[in-house]
């Protein structure tokens, strides 16, 4: 009797041990994969955050340096008429290059993500992308905009747009995402009429219907644009 009791206890213990191993293995396998994914993802996110902080710091430094240079140039211009004439020329060129803050009549355009459509599967068409921003900016320039900023980033003659789904990278700035706010100074009536035209911005309009992408705009008697705060270097270009 005592021996049978011992045997049954031993059998239960052996089964429990095997079960324990199996459960521990399963738990380990399921826990480790997500934990590693999270750690890897978090490391990447931290890198992005660090780089964005360095990016913001550099842009602040550039804005400060440009202000200091402008002040030094103004000092020099005060001592010479020829320097004054040169400074006026440069001031006009800087304004057209987006290097100085502007204001005037214009429009404000808001663009925001829509909602995923079940029929569209994994497509990211409901997200605002860089081509949407590029299309709006090009339309506004074609309709008389004299200066444009996107989420506070000034567009320059060298501006380039890039980015993956839902991310909009403009020049050397950090990625922007929905909602996108485009402000343009210029012929406000012409710009509003162009934005109102159903045949303009066909890609965005189609996704407004399919994904409820948000596009709104309003004319204003006075909107303000900040100065460009990034690089305008052209190391490979030489005057003829």
């Amino acid at each position, binding site marked *: 009797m005592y021996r049978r009791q011992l045997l049954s206890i031993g059998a239960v213990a052996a089964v429990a041990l095997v079960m324990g191993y199996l459960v521990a293995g399963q*738990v380990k396998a399921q826990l480790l994969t*997500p934990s590693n*994914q*999270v750690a*890897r*993802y978090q490391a990447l*996110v931290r890198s992005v955050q660090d*780089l964005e902080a*360095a*990016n913001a710091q*550099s*842009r602040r430094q*550039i804005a400060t*340096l*440009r202000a200091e*240079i402008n002040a030094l*140039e103004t000092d*020099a211009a005060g001592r*010479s008429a*020829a320097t004054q004439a*040169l*400074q006026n020329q*440069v001031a006009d*060129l*800087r*304004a*057209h*290059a987006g290097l*100085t803050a*502007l*204001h*005037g009549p214009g429009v404000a355009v808001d663009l925001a993500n829509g909602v995923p459509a079940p029929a569209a599967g994994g497509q990211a068409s409901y997200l605002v992308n860089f081509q949407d921003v*590029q299309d709006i900016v*090009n339309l506004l*320039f074609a309709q008389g*905009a*004299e200066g444009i900023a996107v989420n506070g980033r000034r*567009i320059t*003659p*060298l*501006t380039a*747009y890039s980015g*993956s789904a839902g*991310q909009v990278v403009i*020049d*050397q700035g950090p*990625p922007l995402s929905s909602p996108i706010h485009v402000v343009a*100074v*210029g012929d*406000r009536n012409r710009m509003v009429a162009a934005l109102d035209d159903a045949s303009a911005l066909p*890609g965005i309009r189609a996704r407004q219907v399919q994904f409820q992408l948000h596009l709104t705009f309003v004319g204003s008697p006075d909107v303000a644009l900040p100065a460009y705060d990034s*690089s305008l*270097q*052209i*190391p*490979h*270009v*030489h*005057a*003829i």
Partner: protein
Amino acid sequence: MSTRFRPLPRGRSTARAISIWLIALLVALVATVQIRSQAEVERSLVGIDTTSLAFLIDDLHRANDTLQSETADLQARRATLQSGTSGAADQVLTDEANRLRAIEGLAPVHGPGVVIVIDATGLTALDLQDAINNLAAGGAEATSVNGHRVVTGVAIEQTASGVAIDGVVVSSPWTITTIGDAIRLGEVANLMTQALTADRRVHAATYRVEADVEIRSVVSARPFVYAVGS
């Protein structure tokens, strides 16, 4: 002899209850950790996937390097102005004016770059805008299409007669000339022409990298009508 149920001693019963509670607690802990870690993965991946993050890091590195270079250039310019030497300000301003004229497309320029030729039927203004933006994102510093200088702000529009740059129709084949880092632009041009060749509307798309290309066309200066300096 009777076989009546005999209760366990009080000490053994307490130990068993504690064991059961400990096991329950352990199971709850493991389950919580598992559920939370899964939820964290799902939540963190909602915004952007790891591949896109890696590309973003690469782009930010390049952007920050460019910003550093601009900072160094501005510091040198400030130092020149601070030196107060005769003519220092005039030289800085003249250099700046020449640089800005090139940036704004107001002056003829030359330098290393690529020339892309696209022979197609039915390409639209959006196609040309995308091509020019791809090159700009790839480091183009000056661009022209069929002899028309293009900078951001120059209108590229669809008209009844075809694609127009600043009101002038540009017919196929499009010859896109661009100046910049020739290696980087060559890579971009290679990808672009591959993609274009796969497009049914495109008969041929080729590119060549050149040590020196000229862009003699310029855009007309447009004085501001509405904008006022702040």
